[in-house]
């Protein structure tokens, strides 16, 4: 049997670090078949693709990996992993590359939305009072202009409501009229629901930013509010 190739210097620090964090990621099992790359819409952007990125990890090209902006073009959609014959967790690899960037070097837009979410409970930075004012205002307008919904009722933080609905913060800020249709459907089915006002944003930019601490904080605050304050039985994701 032929002898294995011996390299004099071969350090894969970053690979070891990520593999420690996600032991099930299977990086070493890559067959270089390229199925991931063939089905990835981000392939070729910034002269990169999933197979090449993984190859660089396995070759210890840590600096090059960390420098490549492709990390932020990949959407971590998971198509590569679902197609991979060895089920290598490329999305988690990319997530960990994101997390390895200095926080202040990560894309400003994503960072800003994450910071706003931590501060005010939603990515657009809407203060709680403004959110409540907006939903009450839109509901009032519907009651006044759409006779079929003259008894439409919207509540915020109603204790004991069966369902709590999260809400993408884009609507209350840029297109409040888009809030109405969902409310009207809920009204028609006589749903028992409320809008929570703590961490109510349905989006999660801290996850995209790979800000573990921020992400955890948002989740903990949200779960506490639903469990301890509102005591809702169901949380409904509206997107």
């Amino acid at each position, binding site marked *: 049997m032929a002898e294995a190739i011996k390299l004099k210097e071969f350090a894969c620090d970053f690979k070891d670090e990520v593999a420690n964090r996600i032991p099930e990621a299977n990086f070493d099992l890559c067959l270089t078949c390229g199925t991931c790359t063939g089905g990835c819409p981000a392939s070729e952007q910034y002269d990169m693709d999933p197979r090449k990125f993984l190859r660089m990890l396995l070759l210890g090209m840590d600096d090059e990996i960390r420098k490549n902006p492709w990390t932020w073009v990949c959407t971590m959609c998971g198509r590569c992993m679902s197609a991979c014959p060895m089920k290598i967790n490329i999305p988690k690899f990319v997530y960990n590359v994101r997390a390895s960037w200095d926080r202040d070097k990560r894309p400003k837009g994503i960072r800003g939305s994450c910071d706003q979410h931590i501060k005010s409970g939603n990515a657009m930075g809407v203060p709680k009072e403004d959110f409540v004012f907006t939903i009450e205002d839109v509901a009032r307008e519907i009651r006044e202009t759409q006779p079929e919904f003259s008894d439409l009722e919207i509540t915020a933080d109603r204790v004991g409501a069966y369902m709590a609905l999260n809400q993408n913060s884009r609507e209350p800020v840029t297109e409040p009229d888009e809030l109405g249709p969902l409310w009207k459907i809920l009204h028609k089915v006589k749903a028992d629901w409320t809008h929570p006002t703590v961490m109510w944003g349905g989006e999660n930019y801290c996850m995209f930013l790979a800000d573990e601490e921020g992400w955890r904080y948002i989740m903990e605050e949200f779960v506490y509010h639903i469990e301890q304050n509102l005591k809702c039985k*169901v949380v409904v994701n509206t997107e």
Partner: protein
Amino acid sequence: MKKYKIPHTFEFKSIIELYAQWIKDGTLKVNSDWNKDLKIKFTVQDPCNIGRKIGTNKIVDDLRFVVKAVVGEENFIDMVPNRSNNFCCGGGGGALQGGHTEQRRAYGKVKFDQIIETGAKYVITPCHNCHAQIEDMCHHYGGDYHTLHLWTVICLAMGILGENERTYLGPDLAEFGLDIEGGIQ
């Protein structure tokens, strides 16, 4: 919550599962009669988060059930590939705020071509990221489709879509179901 092992007793559901459940048990009364003669074609964008990433097609199948119920089975055209094997639109993972606009749009070209291939006039996007990305690509690549939230189509089919709630409808449906004063017929 799973990731951080935060204990909780509430259930987590998608609004799409609930729409499907309410239609099936008769709580939400919808039909597609409005589109019987118009025959306007619709397709759907499968958000990765409720398809591939949850490891089952349950919710994206519910999505199809709901859409077919409100636009008519014969007026629904699926993209290929779809459901858990769909292509991401390119707006996910924070990409819309990530700053690499040119690359984001090149990424999304795959989805744009898929949409055009269906020939559908409307793309229903139940996720905000997808909605923003697919609308942006329509402008950028000069498509002629319209990008809709799911609730818009449901309310349209129920005849309860108000005058101010029609931003994303095309001219063919902009006034559909409204009386001359802008009230709902």
